[in-house]
Structure formats: C-alpha cells, structure tokens
C-alpha cells in the first residue's frame, strides 16, 4: 500500500463538496464565506495533487498556480468581509434571507 494520487483527488473532492454545501445551504453570512474559502482550498489541493503526476518540467506549473489562487482568495475574503460589515451595520442581522431584496 503506497500513497496514490487518487486518494488526494478524492480528499479534494470531499472537501470541495463540503465547502459547496456550506456555501449554498447555510443561512449565516459568515458560513457562506467560509464555505467559499473551503472550496478554494480543495481546488488548490487538487492542483498540487495533479502536478505530482506530471514529468519534470511540467510539474512546476501546478505548484505555481495555487500561489496565485491563494492570493486571489485573500483579496476575495478582504472585500467579502468588508461587505459583511456593511450589511450588518444596515440591518443588524447575519441571516442571508434578510438581504434578498434583489430577488425581483
């Protein structure tokens, strides 16, 4: 029994599914943002797991791209939490159903 790449991909898939479920089905705004972070993390893990299955020079790209993905996630969290602060100050609530007035 050795460590196989497929185990890493299955783990990434499970974490991505959990992140997606958290982002869609939780009502608290904080949990929605945390679910997005979890899904982004799973994608990084998948990138690195696949990069290790490629030969020498091609395996570098899969280890560079997650750096950019992490930085973009940092920018997303920054703006996202600023928006949560703004929303919370307006209605004193973190329930996402209170902010559905763009539903039409």
């Amino acid at each position, binding site marked *: *029994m*050795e*460590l196989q*790449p*497929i*185990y890493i*991909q299955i*783990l990434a*898939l*499970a*974490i*991505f*599914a*959990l*992140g997606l*479920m*958290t982002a*869609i*089905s*939780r*009502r*608290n705004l*904080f*949990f929605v*943002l*945390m*679910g997005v*972070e*979890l899904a982004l*993390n799973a994608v990084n*893990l998948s990138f*690195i797991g696949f*990069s*290790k*299955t490629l*030969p*020498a020079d091609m*395996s*570098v790209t899969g*280890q*560079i791209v*997650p*750096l950019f993905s*992490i*930085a*973009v996630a*940092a*920018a*997303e969290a*920054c*703006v996202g*939490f*600023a*928006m*949560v*602060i*703004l929303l*919370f100050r307006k209605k004193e*609530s*973190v329930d996402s159903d209170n902010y559905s007035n763009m539903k039409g």
Partner: protein
Amino acid sequence: MLALIYFIILAVIALGAAVCVFLSRHPLYGALSLVTSMVALAGIYGLIGSPFLGVVQIMVYAGAIMMLVTFVIMVLNGARDSKTPMFDKVSFFVIPAVLVLAGLVGFALVGAPLAFDETALRGSVALTSRTLFDVAQTGPGYFMLFEVLGLLLLSAMVAAVLLAKKRLGSVQSENTEEGH
C-alpha cells in the same frame, strides 16, 4: 507506507474539521475548525512535496485570512442572533444534489489512470522563486502575473477600506465628531 499513514491522519483531520465547519452553530467555532482544516491541508502539501506552498498556506490562509475572519466575527458579535435556523429550506434539494455530483465526479476520477511521476520536481523555495521570477524572454512569464496580483490586492484593500468605513455626515459619525 509511512507516507500513507501520515496522509490518512492529516486527511481525517482535514475532513473532520470541514464537517465541523458545515455543522457548527456559532461562526467562531466554524472559523476555528476552518483553521484546523487549513493547517492539515498545509501538512498534506508538505507531504506530497510542495513545502513552499504549505508554508504559504499557513501564512496567508491560517494566518492572514482567518485572522480577518475571527476579527470580523468578534467585532460584529455575530452570535447575537442565534435564533435564525442553521439551514435553508432549499438545502433539502441542494445537499443530495451536491452529493450526487460528488459521486459522479468521484466515479469518473476512480476510473482515470493516475500515477505519481518519479521525475516530478519538489516545489522547494529555490525552485518556486526561480520559476516565479524568471524574467527571461523565453521564460514562463509568471512575474507579470505576480505584478498584476499586487495591483489586485491593493485595489481590494482600498475597496475594503472604502466599503467598511463609516459614512461621513451620518448620524454616528456626527455624534463622535461634535467638536467640529
């Protein structure tokens, strides 16, 4: 064999913490579970041969982003309305749909022929920085992306400051600035 044991331990920690994020009621417990999950994932990155990415994961995710999350939760006191239900009504359909999707993708993945390549390079600090800052004309050109990312982070910071600051001339800011 030893790598598999380490991987199983870290994977169980990461998955358990992710389940805790999904099921916890208080946002602060969710944030702490998320930190645990991210640190375990950083360990997996180091285990499969990308130590630099593991360190970046700990610094940026477990350090900066989660610090921001816990700070915002504590400032806003997000536990104040503990009466709202945890799950939406639509999650009756969402959770089975996501599970079925994950099952389908997993089925496709298990059939794919994947194997570790022996010649895959170890993502050490030297290799990563040499590739990232390769400014040669024939190089991969990641340094341009790096510069663009600096601009993105700067604009995100300015946007966050502009969004979150109190409106000038609003009631609260006039109360605090009565001397003017």
